[in-house]
């Protein structure tokens, strides 16, 4: 099939069929051993699992060479033994979406900020800092965005008490019953 | 040619005052039976006794003259505010509600909670809605009048008074027919414009004295806009004066009372809107819409980001005064347009009967005048509620760069028409 991005690329509004396999192949060629896991989940979706050190390199390759211009979403997941910062990056030219899972150790929740590549990372990373406590180094304005400025906790972490744990405790339960 | 219902306001009021004096006189005579010293006072009020005693007619006594003038002014004020203002507010609220596909205000006498108006089985809020404005006025009266803490108290309190009083001054010189007026000034139009132009000062004072960033911006914008639109307004009137040769509203209407072109029984009257003054008419109407602060020109007042603009800090009846007198200015503006361009109170020829040489009106001049005022206002309301608001710098653009050249053009057209003999003065 033809190259993923032609020199005179224009947004046609339709996706290119079979593009996910090509994208996966190109990524494997460039980043082979550094990808912990790479697969095609379904049509138009490629998933990569990488360590946090390769994040900027992978994303720069995606944006500059493969034409993935739209950073759709930045998620952070608390897996209790490590964090994972998940990026969904979309290509408007061929409709393909790449999901980059970057693994972060639990005691050092820092990862490089992508604000140099996409300005959409501005608010999205601030939200993840605010709710999950993953620090994005290099972000110019890493302040709380949804919660008040002086809030002390990162609520989405699993150690922050869940709603059912904070529920009203009946007097019967307090007295030792069920 | 139609006839006024009130041929001379002063004389009508004098008749009223003399009738009241007669009633008081009878009471005084009856009391004089008990208290003899009152006989002198009763005779002072009695025209027959005065003639017998050689004292001169009652009507020339200073006291009676002063009371008559006060009653005449009160009649005009009540006519303008209590009757016309309420009706105009009702017309506006009903009309724009119907434009918006809803019923509009519906509180009327059938909403009153006492007999005979509290109907057992019929809905109370399905009337014509005339009493709604009175209800709103009473609501505003009973609200607390809050003064902001750091506001300039004297200026804050005086500016609604300034706005209201300058608006009411207009009605001293504005005639409602060829007899229903308080003062017949030779420079009547000039006086009316002067009174109109006092309001921007009041608005600026109001905006500044409330100690609020938003009202200040609103007041400044209002002052800028109103100053900008005074000029084309007055220039169009200057163009009109070329034709009329007089600033007296009665003269101007009398000049428009003749037919311009006749098609047998029908004729087009010589209204100035049908003359080369049509350009002046358009410029004057647009400027008047801006002066009345109606949408599309209502940036100072109901701007989306300025909450209520310069009236934000007013509450209670101060707000009611400022808010309600916007409609009074609309009535005055529509009256000016009617007098200057649309023939004022002159109606078609066949609306008068001649009874013993005295013209008796079938449809009096006041009725024609009111009809014209309300039609012009309805057109203004219609435009207001159908278009978005124009931004302040665009408004000033239109005022300075488009309307002033057009009004100057109207002057040149008027001068050319006179010089070439197309139209003769008067």
């Amino acid at each position, binding site marked *: 099939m033809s190259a993923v991005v032609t020199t005179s690329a224009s*947004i046609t*509004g*339709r*996706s290119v069929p079979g593009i996910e396999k090509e994208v996966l192949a190109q990524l494997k060629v460039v980043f082979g051993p550094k990808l912990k896991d790479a697969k095609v989940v*379904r049509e*138009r*979706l490629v998933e990569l699992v990488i360590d946090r050190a390769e994040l900027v390199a992978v994303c720069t390759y995606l944006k500059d060479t493969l034409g993935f*211009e*739209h*950073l*759709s*979403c930045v*998620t952070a*997941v*608390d897996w209790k033994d490590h964090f994972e910062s*998940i990026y*969904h990056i*979309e290509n*408007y030219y061929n*409709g393909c*979406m790449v*999901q980059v899972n970057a693994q972060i150790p639990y005691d050092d929740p820092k990862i490089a900020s992508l604000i140099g590549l*996409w*300005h*959409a990372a*501005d*608010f*999205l990373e601030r*939200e993840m800092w605010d709710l999950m406590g993953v620090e994005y180094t290099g972000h110019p304005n890493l302040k*709380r*965005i*949804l*919660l008040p400025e002086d809030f002390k906790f990162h*609520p*989405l972490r699993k150690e*922050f008490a*869940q*709603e*059912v744990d904070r529920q009203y405790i009946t007097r019967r339960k307090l007295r030792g019953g069920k | 040619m139609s006839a006024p219902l009130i041929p001379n306001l002063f004389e009508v009021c004098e008749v009223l005052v003399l009738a009241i004096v007669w009633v008081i006189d009878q009471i005084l005579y009856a009391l004089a039976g008990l208290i003899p010293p009152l006989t002198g006072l009763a005779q002072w009020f009695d025209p027959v006794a005065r003639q017998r005693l050689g004292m001169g007619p009652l009507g020339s006594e200073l006291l009676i003259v002063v009371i008559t003038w006060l009653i005449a002014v009160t009649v005009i004020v009540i006519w303008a505010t209590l009757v016309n203002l309420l009706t105009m507010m009702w017309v506006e609220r009903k009309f*724009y509600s119907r434009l*918006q*596909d*809803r019923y509009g205000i519906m509180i009327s006498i059938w909403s009153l909670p006492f007999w005979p108006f509290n109907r057992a089985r019929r809905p109370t809020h399905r009337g014509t809605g005339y009493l709604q404005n009175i209800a709103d006025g009473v609501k505003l009266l009973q609200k607390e009048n809050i003064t902001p803490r750091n506001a300039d108290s004297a200026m804050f309190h005086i500016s609604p008074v300034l706005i209201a009083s300058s608006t009411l001054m207009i009605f001293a010189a504005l005639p409602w027919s060829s007899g229903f007026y308080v003062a017949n000034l030779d420079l009547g139009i000039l006086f009316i414009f002067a009174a109109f132009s006092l309001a921007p000062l009041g608005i600026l004072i109001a905006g500044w004295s409330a100690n609020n*960033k938003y009202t200040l911006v609103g007041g400044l914008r209002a002052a800028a806009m109103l100053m900008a639109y005074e000029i084309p307004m007055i220039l169009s009137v200057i163009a009109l004066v070329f034709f009329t040769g007089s600033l007296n509203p009665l003269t101007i209407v009398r000049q428009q009372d003749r037919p311009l072109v006749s098609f047998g029984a029908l004729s087009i009257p010589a209204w100035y809107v049908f003359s080369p003054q049509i350009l002046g008419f358009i410029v004057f109407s647009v400027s008047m819409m801006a002066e009345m602060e109606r949408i*599309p020109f*209502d*940036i100072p007042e*109901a*701007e*989306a*980001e300025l909450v209520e603009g310069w009236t934000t800090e007013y509450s209670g009846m101060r707000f009611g005064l400022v808010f309600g007198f916007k409609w009074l200015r609309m009535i005055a503006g529509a009256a000016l347009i009617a007098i200057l361009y649309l023939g004022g109170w002159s109606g078609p020829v066949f609306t008068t009967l001649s009874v013993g040489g005295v013209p008796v009106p079938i449809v009096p001049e006041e009725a024609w005048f009111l009809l014209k005022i309300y039609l012009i206002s309805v057109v203004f309301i219609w435009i207001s*509620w*159908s*278009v*978005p*608001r*124009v*931004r302040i*710098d*665009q408004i000033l653009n239109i005022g300075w760069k488009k309307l002033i050249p057009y009004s100057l053009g109207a002057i040149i057209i008027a001068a050319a028409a006179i010089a070439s003999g197309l139209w003769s003065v008067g």
Partner: protein
Amino acid sequence: MPEFWINMGPQHPMTHGLWNMKVQVDGETVTDAKPEIGYLHRGYEKIMEVREFQKNVVLTDRLCYVSSITWSHAYCLAVEKMMGIETPERGQWIRVVALELQRIASHLMWLAAYGPDLGLLTGLLWALRERELFLDLIQLMSGARMNQNYPRVGGVRNDLPENFEAMCRRSIEHFLEKVDNEYQRVFQESKVFHMRTEGVGKISAADAIDWGVTGPNLRACGVNVDLRRLDPYEVYEEIDFEPQVWHDGGAGDSYARFVCRFNELRESCQIILQALEKMPKTGPYRVKAPRRAEGEGYAKTEDSRGEALFYVIGDGDDRPYRVKIRSPVFCTMAATPIMLRGNKLADSVAILGSVDVCVGEMDK
């Protein structure tokens, strides 16, 4: 005159919803802007971790309460991708009809809010009057006018009632007539409207993509991206419709955003009429979803305001492990300073109104 910061909000009659926009003005010109959000933050992502998969639909309805079916549908799609189940065909067509009806209702609410922003108070009442038609249709279909709890993981809650198609056709016919005769004239053919919205609030296509703007705001910049065409879900591949992209150049201002969103009203009507013809007349509309699930699923849909993305991770329990909600207005809000800079203060309300902010989905 020194520059100073003005607070527009959080209590303001014309910023729809509860958020604060700080603008720095120099005289009348805006030199900088800083949105402050989070006043309506309800902790959705945390709450959704302790509810069963199906019970979360009640919550996702209320994310953007004006456009609730689209958000619940995005969530259900994400959970279905995670579980690996697929809605039967009639269920997919019913979902399309529901989505487009909700899109029209949401755009009409935006229109009703945009009119008064500009001073056109009549637009409020007319648009709400038409919205009643569609709320009636949605009530006929799902039982409620707002926050309907209609999509289910695996389909929809109930089938369309018998008189739905007739009533739908009648309402759409009446509505299309109104759009062409009344709304077109009062909004687009008004010179004052053009004066207020043309050239105001410009953002270039490159900036828009860089900052993550999606939906009609992006299509107004000339970028031909509509997720229903680019990454089709449900049965959008079988429907013939035209994404409304602004073609004329000089794009990205408030007028382009208005026109793109306004024309979507007509497009959605055409989609609904096509769907009513093409859908299978009988068939199952729902598949039973498993109670527990493991894996991850993501779904990207074209919400009324842009690209709504749900990312759901399950760990074998009957509740999600992590739910991530990507809201289009959240990312567009980051781009509003670019739109506001250089314009006058009086335009800021018009610009922010044309962006169509719904605070519920922005603050989660």
